[in-house]
């Protein structure tokens, strides 16, 4: 390995990650009351919520870092939340069968589960090795790590200087991008003691592991565990999220967004199927993390909110209840992202740095550039069938939709399907407003990475529907 790590570096890294996980665990314990979470899900959610919690606390509390240094203040808060969660007796309930979904499970041989677990372990170990073997990608350096370094070098440390937000000479570093990745990187630097571009790479396989853990956790509620493990293994066989631009080892925000987005979408789906409040809460927390990770996360969060409201209204009508009788559970999906996005949006209002990537969204720009749409759609169509990027995931996804049209009568299934198709349509349309001199260059570099956040949901839908078609009979189709 080439990580060039000293003993004190390793100690700092362990402390930073340990505190991050503790914070996430405490947030999880305080948020979830009813549902049972498996061990893998707990680790995955602890890491994601910890990264989100740490980065948000750094952002919100930065005005007081001149009085109390960032890492000590956040460590105290973490310890406090852990004690609070313990005092309230919020142990996570043991995993039990979720009655409404349990009929999809089956008996399977344990040797298969063990073999797949070993295969997944090998995949993850290879990912960590490759992360230490490679440098940050271009965007990983100049869009995200640069902000971590600036925050680290600033006095007091941890506070992103307001002057940076309005620094026209660094507009290319996208100062308006959300801060989950940079501030989590800063958290590592604050404990290691200096900026280390080698060690910070270890964060990104951890985000990928969280994505895999969530995928397994959600899938195992819907199918036998061996099939859920197979799905997790299959996720690691998609080239673009593993090795391409935006991959799990490059330091980009696409895999963290995929983890948060998949969690938000899948927990909302489970909430729609079961009506359990905790799923809405988890969906809201992860939706707000998506907003805090990348600007595209706001599109995902908006879809989750609007589609969930519509779906609940449809369910209420079918059950002959008032249409907004269940609004109380859905409002989390609005409140949480708004609490996260609001202060950041307010801070940027006065920055004055123009967005280099997109022109203002006006009817004039739309009418002038609408001819770009067929070109972008053709590019998307080519991208979706590239086996060197996606295997044959997207053609298989399309085929399962054709096979499963009857199942799509259920509003929760339509929500899940829409979570892939509607953002895909929005991502395609947005290039109409691209401000790049050659907009096709923009499409080429950005569109494939945008699909990373949709691929896990597409894979879940594909595996589930294929499995159900393979075992179907006359009564089920």
């Amino acid at each position, binding site marked *: 390995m080439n990580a060039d790590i000293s003993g004190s570096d390793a100690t700092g890294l362990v402390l930073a990650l340990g505190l991050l996980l503790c914070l996430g665990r405490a947030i999880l314990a305080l948020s979830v009351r009813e549902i049972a979470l498996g061990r893998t899900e707990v680790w995955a959610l602890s890491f994601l919520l910890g990264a989100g919690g740490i980065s948000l606390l750094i952002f919100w509390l930065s005005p007081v870092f001149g009085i109390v240094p960032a890492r000590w203040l956040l460590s105290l808060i973490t310890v406090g939340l852990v004690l609070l969660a313990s005092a309230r007796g919020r142990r996570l309930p043991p995993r039990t069968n979720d009655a409404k979904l349990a009929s999809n499970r089956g008996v399977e041989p344990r040797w298969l589960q063990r073999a797949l677990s070993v295969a997944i372990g090998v995949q993850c170990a290879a990912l960590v090795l490759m992360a230490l073997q490679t440098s940050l990608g271009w965007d990983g350096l100049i869009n995200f790590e640069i902000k971590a370094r600036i925050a680290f070098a600033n006095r007091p440390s941890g506070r992103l200087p307001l002057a940076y937000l309005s620094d026209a000479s660094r507009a290319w570093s996208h100062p308006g991008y959300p801060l989950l990745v940079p501030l989590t990187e800063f958290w590592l630097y604050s404990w290691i003691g200096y900026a280390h*571009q080698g060690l910070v790479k270890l964060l990104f396989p951890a985000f990928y592991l969280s994505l895999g853990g969530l995928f397994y956790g959600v899938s195992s509620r819907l199918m036998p565990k061996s099939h859920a493990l197979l799905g997790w293994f299959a996720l690691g066989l998609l080239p673009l999220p593993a090795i391409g631009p935006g991959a799990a080892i490059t330091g980009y925000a696409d895999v963290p967004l995929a983890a948060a987005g998949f969690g938000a979408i899948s927990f909302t789906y489970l909430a729609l199927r079961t009506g359990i409040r905790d799923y809405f809460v988890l969906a809201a927390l992860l939706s707000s993390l998506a907003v805090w990770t990348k600007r595209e996360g706001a599109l995902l969060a908006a879809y989750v909110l609007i589609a969930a409201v519509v779906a609940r209204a449809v369910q209420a009508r079918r059950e002959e209840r008032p249409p907004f009788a269940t609004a109380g559970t859905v409002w989390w999906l609005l409140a949480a992202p708004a609490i996260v996005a609001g202060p950041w949006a307010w801070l940027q209002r006065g920055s004055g740095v123009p967005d280099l990537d997109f022109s203002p969204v006006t009817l004039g720009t739309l009418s002038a550039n609408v001819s770009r749409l067929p070109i972008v759609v053709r590019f998307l169509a080519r991208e979706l069938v590239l086996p060197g990027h996606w295997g044959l995931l997207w053609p298989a996804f399309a085929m399962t939709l054709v096979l499963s049209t009857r199942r799509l009568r259920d509003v929760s299934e339509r929500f899940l399907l829409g979570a892939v198709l509607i953002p895909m349509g929005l991502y395609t349309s947005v290039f109409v407003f691209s401000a790049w001199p050659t907009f096709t260059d923009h499409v080429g570099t950005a569109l494939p990475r945008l699909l990373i956040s949709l691929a896990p949901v597409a894979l879940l839908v594909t595996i589930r529907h294929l499995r159900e078609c393979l075992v179907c009979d006359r009564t089920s189709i």
Partner: protein
Amino acid sequence: MPATEDRRHVRRIKGVAAATTVALAVGFAWGEVTIVRQYQRFLREGTAGGPSATVDWFLQSAGMGTSEELLNGVALARLPADVDVAFVAPVSRISRQDFWQTCYVSSYLLYPRRVWGVAWCDPGAETGMCETFPAASDLVAAVSAHSARYVLLVGDVELPLTHVRTHRLSSSLTLLDLQ
């Protein structure tokens, strides 16, 4: 639907699902081969994992030395922290990608100084090269537009700029003091 039609329909669905599953598996196998080949390339070409591994990789890939050389040179030259620096390169001596890549990395390293990329349309530039950067013909005006008191010059060229001092930062980079 009559029972026989139902059974045929079920068989069709199962057949298509089975074929799709096989195709999906083939696609995953293709993906795994792609991943393994790329991993092999990473192992052959692996970078050092030090604190500045990434910036050094980008600088060295453009032939610009290391971050340590740049930062040591800037410290020896006593470059103030609150100044504007013009990053200048003649377009005949550098590719567009290398120019902007090195400019942004220099800006990253020289923070909090403000670094402005000024590509110079020098007399040796071929037709059409200047437009692709884009590059300025009037270098004095372009540097003045950013109120730059210093120039970070790529390459060994004579600039049409009056400068007081030069500091050699590396074999490829020179800092010019315009005061």
